[in-house]
């Protein structure tokens, strides 16, 4: 018969786990890694992003759907004109969105702001072994 856990030990275990939970939470809430808030136009762009449910297909920092690509650093990789065309006219499975020019500008400013916060995906900085390319 496996040894039973005594009630006193269960209480201690729960206290320890609750302590770990709140300690972990405190680490996240008080994280001092430098960040900067969005401008008011970028914040408006974030509302446009959310209202049009962009995260259903796209990710930022890995959070979102996978039908489309991660857009964390899309601003520095995709020309502005291409972004405008894709949003307004659609592309492949991406539908067109009925948003005004002001909303589109603020959305792009939001993507530009996110682009400055960090790298969302690994990009190679040096040549990788041949077996990675498969060529």
């Amino acid at each position, binding site marked *: *018969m496996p040894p039973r*856990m005594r009630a006193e030990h269960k209480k201690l275990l729960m206290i320890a786990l609750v302590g770990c939970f709140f300690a972990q939470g405190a*680490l996240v809430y008080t994280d001092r890694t430098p960040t900067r808030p969005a401008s008011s136009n970028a914040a408006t762009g974030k509302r446009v992003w959310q209202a049009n449910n962009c995260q259903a297909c796209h990710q930022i920092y890995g959070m979102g759907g996978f039908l489309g690509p991660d857009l964390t650093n899309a601003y520095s990789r995709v020309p502005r004109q291409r972004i405008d065309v894709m949003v307004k006219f659609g592309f492949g499975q991406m539908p067109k969105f009925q948003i005004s020019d002001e909303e589109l500008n603020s959305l792009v400013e939001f993507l530009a702001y996110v682009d400055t916060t*960090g790298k969302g995906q690994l990009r190679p900085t040096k040549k990788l072994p041949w077996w990675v390319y498969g060529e």
Partner: protein
Amino acid sequence: MNKLTTLFSKLAIFALTMTLLNGVFAVGHYIAALSPKLHESVTQFGTSRAMHTMNAAAWIMFSAVAVIYHYLTAVTGSDLFESRRRTVQSIALCVSAGYLIAANSLISGYSTGREYLEFYPLAGLFILLAWLIFGWQFLSAVRPGFWDRPIYVTMWATSVFFFAYTLCEQYAWLLPSVFDDHVVDMRLQWKACGTIVGSLNLLVYGTAYYIGEKLSGNEELAKSKTAYALFAVGLLNSFTNFGHHAYHLPQSELVKWISFVVSMLEAILFVKVMFDIASSVRLNDSAAARLLRASKWWSAFTLLTAVIISIPPINSVIHGTHVVVAHSMSATTGIDSFVMLAALFYLFAGSAQSSKWLNCAIVITNIALGGLVVVLSCHGLEVGLARLNGRVVVDNVFPVSFAVHGAILTLSIGFVTRALWKLVRSSCVQVSGEIRA
């Protein structure tokens, strides 16, 4: 069978059916030729996806509540539907309001644009209220001699607090200081999303122990030190390993290291699960036992792959690819859904032997799920490696393969669900004879 278990089982089956239906619509959007037609005639991808995830969570929660009410009825010795009528009515009202507001907001095209909680925030309030009332009812009933009760009571009780806390945390974005700083928002969102999944997992693991105890007749496993050790490691993982989704996110290195180290502790769980698989062959051949055995294999597979994809160099390759979807599907379907289906089959059919058609459906479900996981993982790996090379993958095979495996999985789980529905509708407990699909 008590009325509350029957009621919540029916709600759970409805939610599972909606999950399957919306999963089919969502995967249809992956096929380029089909997507515009679905967009115009049925639903947008965003709506299907949101309805799919919302109903998947609802399926797990409703079925767990059904199991918990079964336990509470045995513990209190009374029919809670009658003796706690007002409490039950309050829960039912809040659940109905929450679900209807959520579903209506999604179907009408509204979205908060937040992962898991795309529906109107008022629905979240009703869901929280329902959960708190249910939690209060549960905790009041198990409070006498709480620390002498089995592990599954501890798991369910922990889930009550865990889910309430993380649901509130999910709405931190409503604070301007969080909303305006997107990196802070992402840190909290990843933390809350990871831990809310952990709270649902506690409901599932508690149910697995409860049903395992009933099937095996061994009450000591759920009171052993091993059970509590596994609970501790599992819970630690639940609220720390969200960090392995966000290695790239600008945040404290300590959070990332804690996430990595605790994720590796899951290897301990993997070894224990493998031992459990070996011992579970002694269980009978009822539908419940078959599904529980299958869930143990999926637990081992999911834990092993979770450990592997938590290793930072590997994580960087598969980050943001369908490997993550594969992991999510193997966990939510192979572990969570199989355990909850096993539980409901046990509650309504006991140890009755299942028909060959039902057994066949369970086998096909496992094969289809395996195929789906392989398809998603291969595509994800292909995309991840191509990304390292600065290339974009154009894959015309993956969408069709994804859709085909998803459709087969939907049909087979649908067949299993239909068999369960017949049992629940008749609300009888079979102790002998065969379950007919």
